[in-house]
């Protein structure tokens, strides 16, 4: 049955996937095992996205199926340890920019992959990032933006984090369609990505303690 659930997610068969989860639970399959198999489906979607064999609709629909599965599993997972977090991420679209499609996909995938994500929303002032870092103590901060005006906001936010004495405590990634190495250098951040897989790889590397 294990591949059936993974396949149903990869092939966007929402009702089939949710039905399988119920049947697996009824048959006594451990909820943690069901969750792992569901995550395999999302991992495969991520791989296909990176290879341009799957696209944004598959990621969004896959996330939606995963959300339904998580709801189904939630009552069964209490106290199972399955919710153990991989790391904490504070993320938001920087001041002056109100775009959130890409950021929301990144938030979804980080969440599915075991991160505690604090999404600050759009048009986020520098001081809000600073306060969120003090409160949540994340390993990773994500600064998102679609417009070129975001570059200065990102730089200002990184500077504000430094001025607050928090720069050494976090790795900062800048992301969005226009992000590249120049943007990383300009903003003084630690990494950049223009799609969800890049964000996930950076977060994984940083929370695993790998070098920048």
């Amino acid at each position, binding site marked *: 049955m294990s591949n059936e659930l993974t396949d149903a997610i990869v092939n966007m068969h929402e009702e089939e996937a949710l039905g399988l989860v119920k049947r697996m639970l009824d048959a006594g399959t451990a909820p943690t095992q069901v969750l792992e198999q569901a995550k395999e489906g999302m991992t495969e979607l991520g*791989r296909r996205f990176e290879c*341009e064999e*799957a*696209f944004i609709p598959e990621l969004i629909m896959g996330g939606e199926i995963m959300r339904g599965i998580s709801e189904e599993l939630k009552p069964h997972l209490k106290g199972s340890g399955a919710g153990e977090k991989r790391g904490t991420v504070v993320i938001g679209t920087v001041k002056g920019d109100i775009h959130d499609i890409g950021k929301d996909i990144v938030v979804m995938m980080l969440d599915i992959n075991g991160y505690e994500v604090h999404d600050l929303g759009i048009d986020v002032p520098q001081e809000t990032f600073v306060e969120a870092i003090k409160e949540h103590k994340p390993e990773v901060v994500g600064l998102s933006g679609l417009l070129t005006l975001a570059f200065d906001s990102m730089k200002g936010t990184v500077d504000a984090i430094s001025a607050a004495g928090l720069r050494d405590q976090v790795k900062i990634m800048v992301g969005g369609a226009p992000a590249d190495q120049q943007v990383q250098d300009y903003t003084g951040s630690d990494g950049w990505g223009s799609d969800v897989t890049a964000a996930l790889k950076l977060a994984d590397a940083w929370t695993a303690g790998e070098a920048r």
Partner: protein
Amino acid sequence: MTATGEELYQQREQRFNDIVALKKPDHVPVIAHTIHYFADKVKGFSQREAGYNHKQHYDAIKDVTVEFGWEFVPTNALFAADGYQALGTTQLRWPGGDLPDDVGFQFVEDEYMLAEEYDEFLADPNGFTLTKIFPRIASNLAGFGQVPIPPLFWMANTYYLLNVGGAILGAPPLRKAIESLLAMSDAVGAYFAADAANAQEMAALGYPRTWGAPIVCAFDMVSDMFRSLRGSTLDMYRHPDKLLATIDLMQQAQTGLARMTMQITGNPRVFIPMHRGAGGFMSDEQFEKFYWPTFKGLVLGDHRGRRRALPALRGRLHAASRVPGRAAPRQGCRALRQGRPGQVQGSPRRQDVFLGQPRALAPLHGHAAAGQGRRQRTRRPVR
């Protein structure tokens, strides 16, 4: 002898039409296609001023067009901020609204129609737009959703028009909505007056406008303005038939709008920016089912008439992985390794355009050129 403004105008129109007809022009014209804030920034004006001071904005466009030696005057795609303000617009945010003065206007992505409302919209698109969409995109139009408005045909006689219509219009929320529409119309009237004066002045100087009407693919209309990217994406899987029915309806709107604007401006060129159909957004199958039929219709639909389509094809250059000097395809990415010659469609990535060195970009140009003259599909990823 120096050409007159009228002669220059005709020469430039002819040059453009020759290019569209795949004839060799006498030279390649330099054209800035569309303009938002560029001219204002060159002249030292803020984005806020650009949206509110229409004459100053159009004068800046004139000055920049002449100074930069463009052969056409770029069409202004910045709309009247005082019009947004009159409506209490919530679907956009702009400088002078609640964005800073030096930030451009931005669209607020949201589900302005819910998935469960497709049937209601399809049954009565006009009524739904008036009572549901308008209040959701503009706070000052909330009255249309607060006061029960019967179908208009109920009032198709003098007695009921007075007794029912007269009574409804007296309701303060409805009155406020109507007054907001009139205030918006006044603001837009001033904007159009500046626009018309600019068109006339530039034409006299010999500068045609690049395009007259902007229209978008019907899928984009649904996704951008009604259901959001997330909503329209889920609809591809959960409500494909309703999505397609709405796309059909939106296609009528887009072709109708193109026709109407052509009549008003006299400009046969329509600009069709590609949004969700851009390279990298959706799969071939989704593109062919939900995007391509109507997009193709917009581009080719009026081939017997005067309409000239200026589609903006966007997205990633999918065979770029085979260009020397680019990163090798990632492990396990069979499709990327196999790229097909001649399938490269759309625009190079922005990094390639703005950051690439001429030498590094040469293979890209060569590759794109290799596809010229073929019967091309719009943009499709290599699979």
